[in-house]
């Protein structure tokens, strides 16, 4: 497949470049732009980013492979990043991961045959007080998971319904 940026993309890339005194700092934001457009940043996409920015391909490859949120290979339509790090581990993160693996019939790191879901075990997502939790395709956080909540999320995603932003109310201090 040939990957290309259209006129709108190039305008956005110019806007990104204007935020920095040099071109190189645009690497991360333009990789984001490319991933949002193509769904991943496979080597061909990395090449396009490098050419567009006039940077060495090796540099863009080095950056893309350093950061975990860039998908270096094609993923499912929905990527479930399940946090199993400290606070989530303590609150049942692995139970949630295992439940998702059982439900989808795949292991962490794999994609379902229909290309609908990928599951990943990830490091701390900074939602420790709302553990266990997961993130859907680098976007919405789904907090305070239970098996029922996970089941509903997967059913919703299958039905084309993506999760809403979950506002977590400020906990009120108990003042005796």
């Amino acid at each position, binding site marked *: 497949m040939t990957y290309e940026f259209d006129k709108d993309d190039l305008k956005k890339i110019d806007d990104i470049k204007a935020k920095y005194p040099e071109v190189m700092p645009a*690497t991360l934001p333009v990789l984001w732009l490319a991933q949002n457009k193509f769904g991943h940043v496979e080597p061909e996409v990395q090449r396009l980013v490098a050419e567009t920015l006039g940077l060495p391909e090796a540099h863009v490859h080095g*950056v893309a492979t350093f950061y975990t949120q860039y998908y270096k290979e094609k993923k499912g339509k929905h990527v479930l990043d399940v946090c199993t790090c*400290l606070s989530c581990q303590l609150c049942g993160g692995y139970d949630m991961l295992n439940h998702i693996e059982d439900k989808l019939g795949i292991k962490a790191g794999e994609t379902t045959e229909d290309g609908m879901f990928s599951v990943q075990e990830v490091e701390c997502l900074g939602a420790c007080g709302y553990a266990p939790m997961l993130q859907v395709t680098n976007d*919405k956080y789904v907090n305070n998971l239970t098996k029922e909540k996970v089941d509903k999320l997967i059913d919703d995603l299958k039905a084309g319904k993506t999760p809403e932003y979950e506002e977590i109310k400020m906990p009120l201090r108990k003042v005796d």
Partner: protein
Amino acid sequence: MSTADWKNYEPVLIPNTKDLHKIDVYQQNGGYSALKSVLTDKKKWEGPSDVINEVKAANIRGRGGAGFNAGLKWSFMPPADGGPRYLACNGDESEPGTFKDRKIFEYNPHVFIEGALIAAYAMEITSIYVYIRGEYKDYIDMMQKAVDDAYEKGFIGEDILGSGYSVDFYVHSGAGAYICGEETSMLESLEGKRGYPRVKPPFPAQKGLWGRPTTINNIETLSHVVPVINKGADWFAGIGAKNHPGPILYGISGHVNRPGVYELPSGIPVLELINDVAGGMRNGKQLKAVIPGGSSTPILRADQLDGVTMDSDSLREVGTMLGTAGMVVMDEDTDMVDMLWRIAHFYHHESCGQCTPCRDGTGWLEKILLKIKNGDGEIKDLDLLLDITTQMEGRTICALADAAAWPVRHTINRFRDEFEARCKKSVHAIA
């Protein structure tokens, strides 16, 4: 306000005000008056150095973990030479247990923006970048909206409030790497590279972003500047613990009834924070251990907590640190071997790989802990683990190796019985 009065403390960073994230609401609640005062009240603030002195006197100790006096840090910037100077705001927040800065992005982004603008003015800085971890997509969008609104109202941009001072403010997204919370790694990432920490010196104040003077501050640290300007250094310095004053955003997670982020004075007794603020232990279980300030801070046993307060002096006495004040609470059922293995897994995954003691050391720690966790460990492995930690500490460019070593050493030392029991189990299994 003494620490004992914490129940009467009124939050200033994340008060319970509806829609405070909207610029109009923020202004109706006194927002941007501190910036206005600093830029236009020449009787009160003769110049940028007055602002630095006020912040220095308040003794805002950096809330990103290191706890260095923010005003003092600002004073390290060399004199302006007409070239660009930068403020890099650290919103990378990736240490397990730490989830406080997102509350500012979410509920009160303008207090951070206003604080950053005051900091930039004080240091005669021309551009501000806020680096937010890529996973916080919603908060990145919220920050961008808040920055756009502040531009529109003339609080950011050219000739702010007719003062002649101009500054730009950019939001930059990370892409998933804990190491980018390390200050020089964050600069590398902002410059569009792999987040490899830099050797210091030169320090960022001399040679930071694009080789120019740069100050790096945590989001919460910068947010505290606003109440300091509004209410004075004495107000701030008089809150909570003497040597580590001011309000703190405590993030409490783990086995408590009401986990979350709470703004309260520094120096709160650890046990009151758990029992009164966070609602006590879940399911009536007993408290077993506490990690006070993010996964790198040494763990404390429940029997070490009497009289311990959340400030650097008190925590140092029991052999740990305040860090980010992201407290992880564990109940009696917590398996320390499993828990420590997961921490080691995190640091191994997040080591950038630049320095050998860290790249290899974190992997080695994880591997041995996995062996013990699986029941294949031997008693001598515990001493090997401790030996590895001493070989990692202080031998790398940044502190990630230390951050990986401390929990291993302290968890083994403070819960040695549990580790030995797991190792002995394997001996019996073999026999």
